[in-house]
């Protein structure tokens, strides 16, 4: 192959990789709403559904899915713990999928960390892949807590 054609192919590969990276990065941390307050998700999730012995939060639960091989999971755990502790009735749970492929399949987890936001009744209200965007998550929780008529302070 002519060196210039080879160079063009190599540069093309770099462009494709950059495009993939930009697309991927745009999805990371974004809080995507599931259902609406008027038409919430039908399924109600119980703590036993995610093998948790700890109860869910009265107003919201941040359900984090991790594996033991995950570079961003510990940082996400710290972030979500802080977010939960700042809000009464909000609980953070970290579920290790390493030995629970069934849970990964059931909740359709394709990357770790993935965080599912449950409302007080255990219905899924939002989903985040990657390290959550803190401001978006706070907004989502404020909305949730507001709709539950919680008065803070």
């Amino acid at each position, binding site marked *: 192959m002519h060196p210039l054609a*080879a160079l063009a192919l190599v540069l093309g590969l770099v462009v494709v*990789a950059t495009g993939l*990276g930009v697309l991927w990065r745009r999805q990371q941390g974004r809080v995507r709403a599931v259902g609406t307050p008027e038409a919430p998700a039908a399924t109600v999730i119980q703590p036993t559904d995610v093998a948790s012995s700890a109860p869910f*939060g009265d107003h919201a639960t941040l359900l984090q899915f991790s594996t*033991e091989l995950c570079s961003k999971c*510990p940082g996400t755990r710290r972030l979500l713990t802080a977010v939960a502790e700042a809000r009464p009735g909000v609980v*953070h749970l970290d579920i290790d*999928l390493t030995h629970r492929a069934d849970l990964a399949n059931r909740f359709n987890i394709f990357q770790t960390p993935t965080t599912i936001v449950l409302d007080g009744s255990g219905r899924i209200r939002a989903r985040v892949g990657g390290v959550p965007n803190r401001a978006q998550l706070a907004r989502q929780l404020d909305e949730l807590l507001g709709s539950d008529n919680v008065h803070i302070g």
Partner: protein
Amino acid sequence: MSTSADASHNTASDAGASVPGAAAAGIDPRSPRFGAAITAVLLLVVIFAALVGASVVALVLLVLIAALFAWGAFAGVRRHPYGLLFKALVRPRLAPPTELEDPAPPTFAQGVGLLVTLVGVVLGLVGVAPAVPIAAAAAFLAAFLNSVFGYCLGCQLYLLLVRAGVLGRVQAA
């Protein structure tokens, strides 16, 4: 509030032991990304050499890259020459890392890189010449996304292998 504080520290006990944290012996997350940048550039050279017909150069360089992957996979990323290079040359010029990360995922990713490049080397040796640039391109994608965007291939593959039942099969349902 105390109730949330208590519960928030609970890891679902039945779902396995707590996820090992990075706090114990973390690495600067920029170190593997620096190494991946070097690897990505070398892989581009492999692809270019293979495309212009310098197949021996391409194969030899891919063997070298595979050997470096093997180093990272078996000795751990912390003992990898790129990691040492980062420590000696790059880190002194940067601000301290805001967060340390677990070295296990990048080490696992080195193993994946080893597997992919090794397939290219073996196929190249038995005469399947296109396998060399194709394997190099696959490895380049992962190394480039890791280096530039912070994508962790090891983390993703680990979960997918768990889902496929290859890893982590301890508690059968």
